[in-house]
């Protein structure tokens, strides 16, 4: 408690200052929109950003990849079971792209030289001589298509169901919740398998089976949020002013639900990718010649001892897809979660 009044200040400093009440109300922080704020937070998360970049690359490859290698999509038995070979890096010994293959007895095979094949297949070929690079990206495309389609259906059903159930409450909510309770009492696996047996495996049936089991989580989350939001002042105020129910849902509740919907969707997509691959692996997937990541893995697994690259390539890609989706979803959840706001 020092009294340093010995320091001299000019007299005019002690004039009454211009007092401006509006200055007191000035808000120091710039105001950020919902999206700007969320983006600022996502940007901080390095893992999410790296994931976003890798995912974008995978998406682009799913679109253009099948046309890059220049090999025909059809079968070419003369070129069957060729190991991966990329001219530019075939001299790098620790990379498996030199076009050779070591069999179980440790003997190095050189099928390109043996069969005098001039072209090189970047990711090798399968037992029917199809270019795996092309098939891989076709597979990624179909896997993503199924996942996005299923997730979109999930989102529409789940959000509508949850919003209606939560908003109207009372008896409607009660009945709708009992239905959900029974549905979630049935393991997804069982429903998916039964449905696909009934519908015959195909892009549509797999999508449908995934969508039918997936919407319940979304409905639950949305209902919970709606229950919380509908009694908040802004919704009540709108109701008092005579707004209709659907106007309140779409104008006032949905915008506030965007965060949870996005987070939930981001977790549903990798789940759908996984389930599609899983179904293919147990023999309920797409029928040849269609390929998805799951069927490629299943084909590769059959010959794992002879041609491990056939398994490794799709295995790496599906893992990459799953990891990046999950990391991005984590990043978004942290960004949108109001609990994390400081």
């Amino acid at each position, binding site marked *: 408690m020092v009294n340093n009044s010995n320091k001299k200040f000019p007299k005019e400093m002690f004039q009454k200052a211009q007092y401006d009440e509006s200055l007191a109300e000035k808000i120091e922080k710039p105001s950020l929109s919902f999206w700007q704020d969320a983006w600022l937070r996502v940007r901080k998360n390095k893992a999410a950003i790296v994931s976003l970049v890798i995912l974008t690359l995978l998406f682009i490859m799913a679109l253009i990849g099948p046309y890059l290698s220049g090999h025909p999509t059809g079968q070419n038995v003369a070129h069957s079971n060729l190991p991966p070979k990329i001219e530019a890096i075939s001299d790098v010994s620790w990379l498996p792209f030199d076009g050779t293959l070591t069999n179980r007895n440790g003997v190095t095979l050189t099928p390109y030289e043996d069969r005098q094949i001039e072209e090189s297949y970047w990711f090798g070929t399968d037992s029917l001589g199809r270019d795996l690079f092309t098939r891989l990206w076709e597979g990624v495309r179909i896997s993503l298509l199924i996942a996005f389609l299923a997730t979109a259906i999930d989102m529409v059903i789940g959000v509508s169901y949850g919003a209606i159930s939560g908003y109207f409450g009372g008896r409607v909510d009660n009945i709708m919740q009992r239905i959900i309770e029974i549905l979630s*009492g*049935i*393991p997804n*696996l069982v429903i998916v398998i039964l449905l696909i*047996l*009934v519908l015959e495996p195909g892009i549509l049936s797999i999508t449908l089976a995934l969508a039918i089991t997936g919407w319940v989580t979304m409905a639950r989350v949305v209902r919970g949020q709606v229950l919380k939001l509908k009694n908040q002042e802004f919704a009540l105020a709108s109701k008092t002013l005579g707004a209709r129910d659907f106007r309140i849902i779409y104008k006032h509740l949905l915008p506030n639900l965007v965060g949870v919907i996005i987070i939930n969707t981001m977790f549903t997509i990798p789940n759908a990718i996984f389930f599609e691959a899983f179904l293919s692996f147990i*023999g309920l997937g797409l029928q040849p010649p269609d390929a998805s990541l799951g069927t490629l893995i299943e084909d590769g697994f059959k010959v794992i001892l002879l041609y*491990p690259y056939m398994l490794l390539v799709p295995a790496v890609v599906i*893992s990459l897809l799953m990891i990046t989706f999950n990391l991005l979803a984590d990043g978004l959840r942290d960004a949108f979660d109001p609990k994390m706001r400081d």
Partner: protein
Amino acid sequence: MGKYLLQRILFMLLTLFIIISITFFLMKLIPGSPFAAAAKLSESQRAIMEAKYGLDQPLPIQYFRYMANVIQGDLGISFQFSNTPVTDLISGRIGPSAMLGLQAMIFGTIFGIFLGVIGALKQNTWIDSGSTLIAVLGKSIPSFVFAALLQYFIAVKLGWLPVAFWRGWEYSILPTIALSIFPISIAARFMRTEMIEVLSSDYIVLARAKGASSFEVAFKHALRNALIPVVTVLGPLAVSLMTGSLVVEKIFAIPGLGEQFVTSINVLDYPVIMGTTILFAALFIFIVLVVDVLYSIIDPRIRLSGGEN
């Protein structure tokens, strides 16, 4: 508590009833109905089947017959193994699956909880990053991809463990690891979040204000409170093990329920598919119930509010 339990069991039976019904009618919808899949049946089998299930009867009567049979524990006769009842097939296969499932569950949750706790206690250090990395990989990499990679690198390339089959405990190590990565990652992530939340709660600050050491705070005060909610993920984890067992048993050629289920799907052995489906569903419902009861037992807030108030 008693009333609640009764209510839950009734609801459980209702759900099971609905599942059996759905299974039955979906199977009826399949082109070339299961019981009439003539190509796969010999004349004598069909005669037995039709007599037993009354396939000439109208649908409602078939349905009630099937229901009555299921209640008596009769799930029908397999197509692929002539004259073998489905119940016999299942009971012969359940051992390896149960063993794998239990091992993976115990190893997975304990190791996952351990990872989550050290991650939370050493927040934002390399230990935390390591445990988070394991959790992300475990959650992301599909179990069959992981199982196939384990088999190829550990068993085939390095020769450390048997490649496949079921001839002793060492044969169960790789499949157990493959099955448990998902429980590990879920338990670790959940535990880390819970533990961090508990560690920042008021009563932990009060415990520190009392002079408790960081060890006492973490293990006497925080751990128990953080462990309670982890019980809720045990249900979903058990279910994930069922899903996982289908592919992992296929990969390691283990004579378990999952492997049998996949085979029966591939050869369209409908009675086995239906029987296994019903068994899985019943197990699932039962586990969810057990988890809920367990939760109310270990959380004093729930336990006592039922008893005294």
